[in-house]
Structures are given as structure tokens and as C-alpha cells.
């Protein structure tokens, strides 16, 4: 199968990305017809995966990959088993039709090429998620789906609602992704493996470990946010701001199932424990109920579908959580069914929207004449969604009831009840979406209703028919897709035998009938139910969606508050904090080691030495006390002078020399500058501030002095100086060791030092010379145009 040494699977993964790059160019040339060309890519990928079906159903697994980052054990590796094959086929197969549908839906849109690009990018990322074997690779594709989803949701970017939905999706799924990252990293750390396939082979190693719960929670954090589980469900309905192809593809058929995929993938490691079977059904069930209840409440068809998607995802999570073989089978079947019917229904709603200009279910009716094809496929798809035979949805529902109805435990009863209520409500929505707009009296719509182009109906047609065919050929479907995938999830071979017609009249059939009856009852009382739910929601008055806004605003406000406290803008405060930190920095080690330097008897200084110290101190005090800047400058001279003399007393003539020069020049420059500076004698500080500053000054001086004392009381290593003394004259031909150090032993220091001096000169020149920015700039900009250097102002005299 190798193609130039590269496995075709890698090409299949890469192909959408390549196509994404090409898309804008194609769209520029072919406009919406580029869809035909671009759809070939997913179609070919789909075709490629059909090649695996036989082998996979025979129980084979493939790990294919190439080294990516050997140093960090990251491989560009993929794992093909029943689970990934079905997902990959759904993604590529539905993807092909979505590309076509996009061409029709966004015909004439100026950014169509970009749209294709994003869709294909997403497709590639999603393929990556379900195929990836390496945990890091998996995560990367996971995050890429979040990113592309962000771009697609915000496609109508001028609308604030779109932008909000986009960033909301990014925040929730991206945030969840970060949690997942931690989980995956820990998983890899604990298992010692980087490849999912290798971890799966280790089987139950984690279930008794202390790491089990933390890692599980982290992974659930990723999965629940991505798959819109309550209470993170709110982003998904908002994501409906995206163009319909996006909703159909990302937010029902594929991306939102990534979380479910992940749960199914890690099921062998985490599944079938008490924790697993408690948490997942709990959240899944809650999501199912919340989703369906909120769906019923809507009148926007797209939103109705969106909420039922939430509900379906809840159902899938719930089933995965139950962990029994039947439940897993049910989950797989329902996943397949849902992808087909929901993708189709979204496209149908899009077509209605496209054809009539509205999506409000109360504002359309009797469209079947105008849109016969659309109606047909809508009918087929919703039949499946309603769970009625002979659609795949029916089989799925039967199996899932088998899975839930293990009536040995009370909580399974509860779960089943939830499933029944949920399914009944989905039945209601299915009919509300499929029949209400098409049947009944014709209602005037913003646009005159018309059938869509083939680009628009091909997708619904294919998906809904697929649903039908899959159900009719139930056995084959089961053999080729359901059993391999369920086996992969269970991590051991299952024997599945699917039939369209139930072989035995058992509890599931009864439950199905209950579901339908309940559904019909609710459908007939839809308006009342809607009002009831609306009333309840109004009385609650809050939901996670508002919570999101509040959280974001809260974060921003908190940030502004904290930042205002930290970066408060007053220089004096900045300095105070800095000095306080310095004092602490020095005090703590002294205190922690409890090593205070010893104070010897009075140091033996000569009288004149004392007097020079005294002069230094008097100079300092004079600077501190100076009534005004002038006096301070002169006093500054005293201490500098004293320091120079100190250097001289301790055998440092070069230093003394330099200190005299530098001090004098400092004072001179200070005087030059001061001529124009206002020298108000005030010290702006309040008394309390002065006390604080004085405290900091005294403690700061003390800790520095003490540290220095402590340092100098350690035996000194004068190796370096001995070396310098020894070779200064002999090799470096200089008798002044200090100067030899400066220009030879440590000449590079001096090189840097003169760089400092040079730059200082230039910087000061810039400071002084660039005076009126506006005027000068205008002048020079003009000069730029005519390409002649402007004459030097002022300094031109010299040259």
C-alpha cells in the first residue's frame, strides 16, 4: 500500500489540509462550483477507508505512523480499528456532501473560498482526532478542531452574536482541551506509554490506581466540554450562528462527537467501574433531559435541532457510561443513526432557510409543494430521528433500550425512564421539524419558497437514504460497522446480530411503544408544553449561557481591578515595593541561617581616617537635609570627595583619580542641567511616608551592611589577584596592575564599558536634540520623499 514510501493513510490525513490551501484559489476561479472538485478529496478518503472495513471487521488493527519528534517521543501515528474506521468514514463521507452543500448554500458569498478552506481544515483535524494514536498528536488535532470551529462559527463575523458564539465555543472547548491535555500527559506519565494503542494493551492497569480518578476527571473535562454535556452544553446552540453547513457538519455530525469518541476510546482503560458508570450516566442523562426540554421550547428549527443534538450527545455519553455490551452497541448504533439523520435535517433546515428566508417553525407551512425533494429527505431523516421503523434510528433505539433496561438495579430504571422521556421529546422535535414546515396550510414567507439546487439536496438525500439502507441491511451494517466498533470500545470481540424487525417481544419494544405514545401526546400539546417550559425557565431566570457572559465580564473586571492595584502608576510606590522586596530578600537569608556577623572591637582607624569617614557621613546627612537642590548638589560633592579619599587611603590611586574626576564632572553636569530645573525645596512626601521610607532606608542599609560584613568574614580566596600581580609586568608589560587588568586581563569589560559611554553620548544627544517631535517629523517625512538629507539644525556649524 506504500506510496513513495509514505503510507496512504498519512496522505489521507494530510489531503484535507492540502485541499484547504488550494480551496481559496479554486473558489476564485470556479466560484461555488469548486465544491464539486473539492468534494472529491473527502470522497477519495472515504473510499480509502472502505478498504479497511473488511479487515477491521475481521478483527484486525493497524498502527501506522512515522517519527515526528523522536526526542520527545511524539509520533505522527494513527491507529485504525473499528472505532476509528467508522468515525473516519462518517467524517469523510458526510464531509463530501457538506462540501457540496456549502457550495450551494454560500453560492455567491465573497468569502466562499475561505469557507471551503476552513471546512477542509476542520475535516483534516477531525480525521486526525479519531485516527491519532499518539496522545500528543491526538491532542493537537483536538485543539485544531476547536480552532477551526471558532473560525467557522464566527464566519458571519460582523454579527456580534456570531462573535460571541465563536469565542464562547473557543473558550469552552479550548478550555476543556487544556484540562484534557493535563489528563493525557498524566495518562502517558502513569502508563509510561505515548501511544494510545500501547496503553490500551495494558488493559486494567489504571483502574485500581490512585491516579484513576484524577486522570478520569481531567479527560472527562475535555470530553464533556467538547461534546456539550450539561452544564457545558450552552455553547452548542449558540454555535448555530454559523452557516448551516457548519452546524450540520461540526455541531451535529462530527466535532461534537469527538468527546464521545474519546470516552469510547478510553473505555477499555477507564470504563466499567463504579465511578465511570455513575458519573457518565449522571451527566449524560442530565444532558439528555435538559437538551430535549430546551429543544421543545424553541421555535427556530435550527435551534431545535441543536438542542436535540445536545440531548443525543447526552444519550451517547449515558450509554457509554453504562458500559454493558448492549449499551455500547446501542451507543454505536445511535451514533451512526444520529450522524446521518441530524446531518440531513440540518441541511434541510438550511435549505428551508435558504428557500424561504426564515427558520421559524411557526412562520412556515405547506412547503412540500414548493420543495418536494427536500420534504422527502426531511421526512426520511426525521423518521429515523423519531425512532420509527424501518429507519436506523429505530434499531438504535431498540438496542439502547436493551442496554439501559437491565432491571436489576434501581438506577437503571431511572436511566431508562430518562431515555424514554428524552426519546419521546426527540420524536416530538422530529415531527415538528419534518412535518410542520411542509404540511398544513401554506404560510407566506419572506422569500418565495423554491427548491434548492442539487448541491443543496444531494447531501440530505444521501444521508437520509443511507439511514434507510443501513436499517434495511441491518445485519450487514452490524457486521461491518457496529460490531467492530463496539468490540473496539469494549476491547474484546462482541457478537452482535442486528435485525430490523425485533426477534423477540421484550421490554425494549414496550419501551419503544411508550416512547411513541408519549411523543404523540406531547406533540399534540406542543404549544402548551412550550409555554410551560418557557414559564419554568423564566422563573429560573438564569442559565449557564448568561453565566458565561457573567464569567467573562467577571474575569475582565477582576483583571482590571487586580491590575489597577498592582500597576498603580505611581513611581514612588513602585520604588517602595522594589526596595521592600530587596530588604526582605537580604533579611530572610540572614534570619533563616541565623548567622549574624560578629562585631569585633573598635576598628583601628587613624584619626585622619576617622575624619574622612566623618566627612562622608556629614556629606550624606547634608544631602538628606539640604533645604534645596543647590545645597544638595554641593553636599553631594562632599561625599564623593570623601569616597575618593577613602579609595586613596586603601591603596587605590586609580580609583581615587577616577572618582575625583567623575564626581566633579557629575556635579558639573548636574549644575549645567540644574540651571533650568526648578529647585523647589519641598519634599513631596507626607510624614507617614517619610517614616516608612526612613524605616526601609535604615533596614535596607543595615541588611546590606550586615551581608557585606558576613561576606568579608569568610576566608578570602585571592587566587585571581595573585595571578594578575604575578603576570602584569612579566607578560603584559604593565606596572599598573589595575590598568593592565582593564586593558588586557579583562579588556573585554572595558570594551563593553566604552560601548556604554558611547551609547550614552548618543542617547543624551537624542534626548536633547529631538525636541518638537511633530515639527521635526513633518519636516523629515517631507525630506524622505525628496530624498535629500535635511540640514543639521544647530550642530551643522561644526561640519
Amino acid at each position: 500500500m506504500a506510496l513513495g514510501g509514505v503510507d496512504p493513510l498519512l496522505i489521507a490525513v494530510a489531503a484535507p489540509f492540502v485541499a484547504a490551501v488550494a480551496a481559496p484559489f479554486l473558489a476564485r476561479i470556479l466560484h461555488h462550483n469548486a465544491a464539486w472538485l473539492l468534494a472529491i478529496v473527502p470522497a477519495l478518503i472515504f473510499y480509502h477507508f472502505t478498504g479497511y472495513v473488511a479487515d477491521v471487521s475481521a478483527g484486525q488493527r493497524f498502527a501506522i505512523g512515522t517519527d515526528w519528534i523522536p526526542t520527545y517521543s511524539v509520533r505522527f501515528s494513527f491507529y485504525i480499528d473499528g472505532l476509528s474506521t467508522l468515525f473516519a468514514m462518517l467524517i469523510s463521507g458526510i464531509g463530501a456532501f457538506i462540501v457540496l452543500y456549502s457550495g450551494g448554500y454560500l453560492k455567491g458569498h465573497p468569502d466562499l473560498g475561505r469557507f471551503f478552506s476552513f471546512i477542509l481544515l476542520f475535516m483534516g483535524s477531525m480525521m486526525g482526532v479519531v485516527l491519532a494514536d499518539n496522545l500528543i498528536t491526538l491532542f493537537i488535532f483536538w485543539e485544531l478542531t476547536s480552532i477551526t470551529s471558532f473560525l467557522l462559527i464566527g464566519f458571519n463575523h460582523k454579527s456580534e452574536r456570531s462573535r460571541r458564539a465563536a469565542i464562547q465555543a473557543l473558550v469552552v472547548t479550548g478550555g476543556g482541551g487544556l484540562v484534557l491535555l493535563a489528563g493525557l500527559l498524566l495518562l502517558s506519565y502513569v502508563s509510561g506509554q505515548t501511544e494510545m494503542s500501547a496503553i490500551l494493551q495494558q488493559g486494567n492497569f489504571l483502574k485500581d490506581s490512585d491516579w484513576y480518578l484524577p486522570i478520569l476527571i481531567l479527560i472527562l473535562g475535555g470530553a464533556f466540554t467538547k461534546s456539550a454535556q450539561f452544564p457545558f452544553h450552552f455553547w452548542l446552540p449558540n454555535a448555530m450562528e454559523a452557516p448551516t453547513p457548519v452546524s450540520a457538519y461540526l455541531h451535529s455530525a462530527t466535532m461534537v462527537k469527538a468527546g464521545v469518541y474519546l470516552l469510547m476510546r478510553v473505555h477499555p482503560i477507564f470504563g466499567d467501574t463504579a465511578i465511570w458508570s455513575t458519573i457518565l450516566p449522571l451527566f449524560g442523562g442530565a444532558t439528555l433531559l435538559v437538551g430535549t426540554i430546551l429543544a421543545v421550547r424553541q421555535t427556530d428549527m435550527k435551534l431545535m435541532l441543536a438542542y436535540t443534538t445536545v440531548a443525543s450527545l447526552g444519550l451517547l455519553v449515558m450509554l457509554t457510561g453504562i458500559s454493558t455490551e448492549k449499551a455500547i452497541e446501542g451507543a454505536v448504533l445511535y451514533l451512526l443513526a444520529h450522524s446521518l439523520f441530524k446531518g440531513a435535517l440540518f441541511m434541510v433546515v438550511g435549505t428551508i432557510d435558504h428557500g424561504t428566508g426564515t427558520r421559524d417553525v411557526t412562520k412556515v407551512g405547506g412547503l412540500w409543494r414548493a420543495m418536494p425533494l427536500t420534504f422527502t429527505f426531511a421526512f426520511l431523516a426525521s423518521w429515523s430521528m423519531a425512532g420509527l421503523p424501518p429507519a436506523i434510528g429505530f434499531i438504535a433505539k431498540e438496542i439502547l433500550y436493551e442496554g439501559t433496561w437491565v432491571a436489576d438495579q434501581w438506577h437503571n430504571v431511572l436511566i431508562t425512564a430518562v431515555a424514554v422521556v428524552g426519546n419521546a421529546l426527540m420524536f416530538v422535535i422530529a415531527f415538528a421539524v419534518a412535518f410542520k414546515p411542509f404540511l398544513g396550510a401554506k404560510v407566506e414567507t419572506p422569500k418565495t419558497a423554491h427548491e434548492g439546487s442539487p448541491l443543496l439536496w444531494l447531501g440530505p438525500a444521501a444521508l437520509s437514504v443511507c439511514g434507510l439502507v443501513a436499517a434495511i441491511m441491518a445485519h450487514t451494517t452490524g457486521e461491518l460497522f457496529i460490531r467492530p466498533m463496539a468490540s473496539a470500545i469494549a476491547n474484546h470481540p462482541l457478537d452482535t446480530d442486528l435485525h430490523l424487525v425485533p426477534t423477540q417481544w421484550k421490554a425494549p419494544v414496550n419501551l419503544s411503544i411508550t416512547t411513541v405514545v408519549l411523543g404523540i401526546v406531547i406533540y399534540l400539546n406542543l404549544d402548551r408544553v412550550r409555554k410551560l417550559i418557557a414559564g419554568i425557565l423564566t422563573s429560573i431566570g438564569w442559565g449557564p449561557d448568561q453565566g458565561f457572559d457573567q464569567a467573562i465580564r467577571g474575569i475582565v473586571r477582576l483583571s482590571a481591578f487586580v491590575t489597577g492595584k498592582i500597576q498603580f502608576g505611581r513611581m514612588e510606590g513602585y520604588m517602595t515595593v522594589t526596595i521592600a522586596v530587596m530588604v526582605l530578600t537580604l533579611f530572610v537569608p540572614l534570619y533563616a541561617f541565623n548567622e549574624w556577623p560578629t562585631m569585633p572591637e573598635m576598628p583601628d582607624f587613624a584619626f585622619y581616617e576617622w575624619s574622612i569617614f566623618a566627612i562622608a557621613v556629614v556629606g550624606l546627612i547634608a544631602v538628606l537635609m539640604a533645604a534645596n537642590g543647590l545645597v544638595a548638589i554641593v553636599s553631594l560633592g562632599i561625599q564623593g570627595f570623601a569616597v575618593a579619599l577613602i579609595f586613596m587611603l586603601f591603596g587605590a590611586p586609580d580609583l581615587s583619580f577616577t572618582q575625583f574626576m567623575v564626581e566633579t564632572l557629575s556635579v558639573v553636569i548636574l549644575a549645567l542641567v540644574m540651571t533650568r530645573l526648578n529647585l523647589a525645596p519641598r519634599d513631596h512626601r507626607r510624614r507617614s511616608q517619610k517614616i516608612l521610607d526612613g524605616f526601609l532606608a535604615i533596614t535596607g542599609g543595615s541588611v546590606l551592611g550586615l551581608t557585606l560584613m558576613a561576606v568579608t568574614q569568610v576566608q578570602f580566596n585571592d587566587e585571581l589577584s595573585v595571578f594578575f600581580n604575578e603576570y602584569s609586568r612579566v607578560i603584559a608589560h604593565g606596572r599598573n596592575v589595575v590598568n593592565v587588568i582593564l586593558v588586557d586581563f579583562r579588556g573585554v569589560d572595558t570594551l563593553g564599558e566604552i560601548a556604554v559611554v558611547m551609547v550614552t553620548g548618543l542617547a543624551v544627544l537624542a534626548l536633547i536634540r529631538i525636541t518638537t517631535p511633530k515639527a521635526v517629523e513633518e519636516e523629515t517625512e517631507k525630506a524622505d520623499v525628496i530624498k535629500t538629507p535635511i540640514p543639521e539644525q544647530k550642530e551643522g556649524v561644526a561640519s
Partner: protein
Amino acid sequence: MEVGLSVLIGIFFAASIYLILSKQIIRILLGIAIIGNAVNLLIFTSGRLSREIPPIIPLDQDVPALGSANPLPQALVLTAIVISFSLFAFLLVLAFRAYQELGTDNVDEMRVAEPADQPKPPMGY
């Protein structure tokens, strides 16, 4: 000797910190000038002290006289003096220009870069 000088250096540091903590720009600059001296003395003392004999090799010798001062800290301090002098000159002129342009010598009133009324971050999308 080092102990005695350490005390003096501590006083230098204390004075300079007190000045640097001022609001008046010129006092801050004075503090900076003094802290430069304090640090130089600190490095000088760190290399241990000896009296009066400079590290200069007499004409008829190959090495400096016994008990001569440690030359390395002197070289370090020289470099540091030059650098701190440069920085001081720059800071001085900068302070002067800031005073000219901003019309105040109180650093707490220099609030152009970080105005007191920071705009609130937008809350929409």
C-alpha cells in the same frame, strides 16, 4: 577594617535608599549618585582592604610590593564607576527633559504613560 567600612557602606545605602524613595526627581537622582558610590565601596570592600600600598609594580620589581591592595576589585570598580557615571548622566538629562515636557518634578504626578483614569476594558464581543 572591613567591618568598619561595612557600617559606612550601610549608611551610604541607607541615605541613598531614603533619597530614591522620594517623589522629587532631583532627590531621586541624588540617591542614584550616592548608591553608585555605595556599590563601588561595597565591591572594593568585598575584595578586602589593605592600607595605602597601591598595586603598582615598582620600577625594579616584577611584582607589586607585599601587602599591596587587591587590584581586581579596583578594576571592577573602575568599570562600574564609568558605567554608573554614564547612566547617571543619561538619567539626569532624561529627568530634566521629563521635567520640561511634563511640567512637574514629582514622579507621582508623571502619569502620561499610565494615566490615573485607565479606560475600562470593553465588555462586549
